[in-house]
């Protein structure tokens, strides 16, 4: 699956809440498939995207809203060598969220750091 050894910086931008729409889930599916390509992957969570990582999500096909809880999959990312996960500082603050309420370890970036990260990318995927 490798493309002649080309390694690009891929950024996945997640700005949408889970369950209300499918973007969070299908974005994660791209990241997992993409991992086989051994690119330099980062994921950022901005705006309602930070809610994707909230701990204690509870729903299943047969209970609650009738959709499966896919939040545990974020924990599997490490096994795919996807370890650069960033959350937007302001988005966390507006929502009163702290990093220990999230399912995976993340790095908090302020506005300037987030802009810098984006600028360093070769490919930006947003859903």
């Amino acid at each position: 699956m490798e493309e002649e050894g080309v390694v690009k910086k891929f950024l996945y931008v997640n700005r949408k809440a889970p369950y209300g729409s499918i973007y969070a889930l299908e974005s994660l599916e791209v990241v997992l498939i993409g991992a086989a390509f051994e690119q330099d992957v980062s994921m950022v969570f901005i705006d309602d995207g930070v809610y994707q990582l909230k701990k204690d999500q509870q729903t299943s096909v047969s209970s609650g809203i009738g959709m499966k809880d896919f939040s545990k999959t974020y924990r599997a990312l490490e096994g795919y060598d996807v370890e650069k996960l960033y959350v937007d500082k302001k988005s966390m603050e507006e929502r009163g969220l702290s990093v220990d309420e999230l399912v995976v370890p993340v790095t908090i970036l302020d506005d300037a750091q987030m802009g810098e990260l984006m600028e360093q990318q070769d490919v930006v995927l947003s859903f």
Partner: protein
Amino acid sequence: MLHTVNKSPYETNSLSSCLRLARKGHTILLFENGIYGALKGTCFENVVTDALNKYQICVLMPDIEARGMRVDNVITGIKTVDYAEFVDLVASNSTVQAWL
């Protein structure tokens, strides 16, 4: 009259328009991503708490729980409901308006 809001107040203006245009005494149900408006500790907590003086506000628990929240996270004064009670809210209000 029952108003339903299924959008996050961070993402769209649905909740804000609903709060501006609904009349005193109306009921507002927050569900789907709309539940983010019902949570403690957010930048919308004050606005929504104030709105409780004018409206009855309800929130759908299955949507709260799916998103990793619990009753403890819900602003005091907001009534938690399940799908059966959502049905009751529709039955007991003569009109329903969805703020999509």
